[in-house]
């Protein structure tokens, strides 16, 4: 998919760009309001990642303009402000999602993919990874077409993994994905650790390969690469 990232911090911009490009997307960048306006006017994008505070304008105005011109692009707001007003307003004027800085790139990736799936496939698209098949809208995971019996959180974990395949997912990123911002506690890491073991067992029972690699105590990687 084609993504435009509008963000004034060049370093941040490069990080997002390279992360999304590695996911196989075409990713373009706009470091200012003006540059964003120019690009949106010329090229079609599937997804816009918009920072609200830009040196020469407000990201919310870009969203308004996009919606006014009926450009069919998914929109994710990224903001350091974490202001409820901004969030509500952003979603009201047509943004699809809102992320507060600092966010995990894996989380941004997951959100972008979810929006894309909803927009292009009406959410009905299955996600495949070798023998694994995920139906996000019905929260089902199949191994060799056998339904896995998973808890809600186990589903969330494997879904998050498959969306961010080949990526290092830290415990913190997983915890935030599972519970959001406010339920962060030491127990959640222990919980993730135990459930990773359960997940491995359940996948192995249905004849699936073990794709979950522990990266020391930092986190996990879901990959079939060596």
């Amino acid at each position, binding site marked *: 998919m084609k993504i435009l990232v509008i963000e004034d*911090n060049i*370093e*941040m911009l490069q*990080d997002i760009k390279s*992360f999304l490009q590695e996911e196989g997307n075409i990713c373009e960048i706009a470091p200012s309001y003006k540059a964003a306006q120019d690009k949106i006017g010329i090229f079609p994008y599937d997804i816009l990642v918009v920072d609200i505070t830009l040196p020469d304008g407000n990201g919310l105005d870009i969203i308004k303009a996009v919606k006014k011109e009926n450009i069919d692009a998914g929109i994710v707001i990224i903001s*350091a*402000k*974490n*202001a*409820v*007003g901004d969030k509500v307003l952003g979603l009201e004027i047509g943004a699809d999602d809102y992320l*507060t*800085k*600092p*966010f*995990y*790139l894996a989380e941004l990736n997951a959100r972008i993919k979810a929006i894309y799936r909803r927009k292009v496939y009406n959410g009905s698209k299955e996600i495949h990874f070798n023998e694994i098949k995920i139906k996000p809208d019905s929260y089902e995971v199949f191994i060799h077409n056998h339904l896995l019996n998973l*808890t809600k*959180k186990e589903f969330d974990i494997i879904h998050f993994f498959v969306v961010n395949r080949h*990526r*290092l997912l*830290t415990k*913190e990123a997983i915890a935030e994905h599972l*519970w959001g*911002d*406010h*339920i*962060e*506690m*030491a*127990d*959640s890491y*222990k*919980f993730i650790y*135990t*459930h990773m073991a359960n997940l491995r067992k359940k996948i192995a029972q249905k004849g699936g390969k073990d794709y979950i690699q522990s*990266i*020391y*105590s*930092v*986190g996990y990687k879901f990959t079939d690469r060596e």
Partner: protein
Amino acid sequence: MNLVKKTNTNYLIFLALLFPIMVIVDYFLIQYIVNSEVEEILLHEQQRITFHLDEEGILPTSNYLFHTVPMDESLEHLPEFRDTLLYEGYANKQIPYRTYTFSSSIDSQPVKITLKHVLLEINELIWLLFLTTSLITFLLVLGLYFINQKVYTRAWQPFFENLSKLKNYDVTQKDPVYLDGSQIKEFEELNTVITTLIDQVKKDFQNLKEFNENISHEIQTPLAIIRNKVVLLLESKNLDENELKNLEALYQQINKLSKIGKSLILISRIENQEFKRLERVDVHTIIANILSNMEEIINFKNLKVSTELQTVSIECDHILADILFTNLIKNAVQHNKDGGTLHILLTEGKFEITNTGEVSDIATEKLFQRFQKGSSAKESLGLGLAITQKICEIYGFQLDYVRNEALHTFSLFFNSDTIT
């Protein structure tokens, strides 16, 4: 003691001291005046009698004549005034008189003529004085009291209005304070000083707030970049174990910093009253949602959860309500021991959560302060309860904590205004 009482008391003390002085001074003054009047009358009478004796040689009739006796050879200095008491049969008592004795001659016979005039009785005089002075004093007190009262209520009116405005003043409020003007110079001066002071405090507070917010905000983007870079480093394959360990520690500290920043932003946003929406929030639903969201962790810790939830709705911001109850329940889960219990009670006016845990050594009054942590949770920031407390302040909820050995109870009393 308020000002009017203080003033009135001072007036009363002054009048109480003045009262006997007034009586004594008046007594002598009046006595002197009466005596000299009487003497004048007697002298006038003496002149009249002497005139008639010289012209006609007979003693004229006189109301003041006391007696006439032949002159003896006593060594009296004549004429002379005297005070005497004379018995009056009609009154059946001694009455004070002023007498004037002078020498003259009737029919060539030298005589001593004495004139008399009745005087005020001393007792009567003192009584009279006491009565009049008391009356004056009483009227003075009454007058002063009412004048004071009037002055107090009228002239001090702007002062009291301003006082109540200042009592309600909160440095976080957005609207400026307008103090009532007054015609009294001192009050005007006070107003000027207070207004300047408030402006200064407000400015300082604003600066401090902006500084906090800026710091919290501005660190987030650099932190995000650092974090992404660290993840990139962690992903690279050729790191030895030592390097990995360092990177991991770095990563965790970045996360901690970022969370502190986010929590402080949240606190300052609660203080700024950014969560202004008032909506009907079903507390029982919120609690059920939180419990279901934490279900796995609760099961994971083998906690036995019991709930008694009544249907309760309060009027507040949904996000804040969610944070409030999440923090309290999370706290009870986090500080619980493996296989412990957790009891949640929700009634019309109260939410109560009791959990087993370690015997914490943190003082109860310090519990709600920022960056205070119990011994068990090294990972926690110690900001959760500070946030909880802030939310309670906003809505006027009362949050109590009781520790009974290893049993911890938080009780939240809803403000009756918010219950719907």
